[in-house]
């Protein structure tokens, strides 16, 4: 199964959509260093990516935005043994529309200062799951739930905040940094209040280009890649 020939290698990577900007910067770097190899990305929600892989999508590498999907694939035996690694960490931050100075701490979400709060749909959006966990642990959930608006993805949460439709929102730091002019980051959500957000990656069992895929994994772990990830707000592990 691992009969890689050195040239004409084309890796398909199913990656969480939030990685798109970073990956676009990394791709030429990798292809420069590994002549003859090309990278193809398939971006989507982690849950969708998981379902595609389960149904035979021909991907070589999977980078999920949460452990849950990776766990599922591992249990189903779809990962190549020993290739799963944690790649990145992301942080949950509290954001407000640019110019809003009322809200200064996460506790303000429980007060009248916040009339409506945008969150990711907890069952669908990983960021929403973590946000709920954090709010629970901070004893804010009951008061926030009544004013919560759930977005189907992080982008939607961002859009609401950008447009001032809500007074605050909880998103990943990386998402907040993708629109620096429009939203202001008030603070990181206390790390102790939620399980660390890990982006795991793994090579898939059905990959016919195991070596190249592993090589790509190690490239993502390299120092030059770390610089790029940091630039987009990730915390490389």
């Amino acid at each position: 199964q691992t009969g890689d020939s050195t040239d004409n290698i084309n890796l398909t990577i199913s990656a969480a959509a939030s990685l798109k900007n970073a990956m676009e910067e990394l791709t030429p770097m990798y292809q420069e260093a590994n002549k003859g190899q090309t990278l193809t990305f398939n971006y989507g929600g982690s849950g969708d990516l998981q379902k595609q892989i389960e149904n035979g999508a021909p991907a070589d590498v999977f980078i999920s935005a949460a452990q849950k999907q990776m766990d599922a694939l591992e249990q189903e035996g779809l990962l190549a043994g020993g290739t799963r690694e944690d790649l990145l960490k992301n942080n949950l931050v509290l954001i407000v529309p640019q110019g809003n100075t009322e809200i200064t701490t996460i506790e303000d979400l429980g007060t009248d200062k916040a009339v409506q709060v945008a969150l990711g749909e907890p069952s669908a959006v990983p960021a929403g799951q973590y946000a709920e966990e954090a709010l629970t642990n901070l004893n804010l959930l009951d008061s926030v739930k009544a004013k919560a608006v759930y977005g189907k993805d992080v982008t939607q949460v961002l859009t609401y905040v950008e447009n001032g439709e809500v007074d605050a929102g909880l998103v990943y730091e990386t998402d907040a940094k993708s629109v620096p002019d429009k939203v202001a980051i008030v603070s990181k959500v206390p790390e102790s209040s939620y399980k660390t957000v890990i982006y795991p990656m793994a090579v898939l069992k059905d990959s016919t280009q195991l070596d190249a895929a592993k090589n790509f994994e190690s490239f993502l772990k390299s120092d030059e890649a770390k610089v790029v990830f940091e630039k987009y707000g990730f915390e490389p592990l």
Partner: protein
Amino acid sequence: MAEGYSPLLISLKTAILATAVTVVLGILAARLVIRLPEKAQWLTDGILTLPLVLPPTVIGFFLLMIFGKNSPLGQALLQLGIRVVFSWSGAVIAAIVVSFPLMYRTTKAAFEQMDQNLIDAGRTLGLSERYIFWRIRVPVSLPGIGAGMVLAFARAIGEFGATLMIAGNIPGKTQTVPLIIYTATAAGDMHLAMQWVAVIVAISLLSIGGMNIWLARQERKAGGA
């Protein structure tokens, strides 16, 4: 089905109201456009069909721009105490926008297929253009209008991307069946998702069936034979 039946009720209410509005708007739009010179129609057609082409999320985004806090219209509405964003009215508006092209285009085609002689006869009988339109053109075009209605209703019931954006996904308020399906699917709860899919399938079979029967009766009433 932890959420109980409210998504079902919200979906039905939204779709019914939206379809009603769309039907009227679609008929009026078709009426305006068929009077334009043929040369101008490609542009109006292109523009009025846009909501079908654009991804619903993009439509939702535009709606947010139009009705949001930062827009003059949104501001004005807020002054009047009307909030479209995150409210049921937002869901209705989203459903109207996405279903409009279906109603409009189908109705227009039905109008075009009609026997021009009947219109001419109406005119020489001194009937006003309005009367000719509502009492002759519309009834005679009923199969086409009915098809448009069915499509619009189906689209409104299934609408999800734009609704989510402008109306939010607020359980008991704006969470429609497609939204709950989406949420469940995304969460990997296929069991719940499929339950709601079954509900939506049932709704559409029943409602489309009902509409078909109603339309057939109207036509029989109107068309004789």
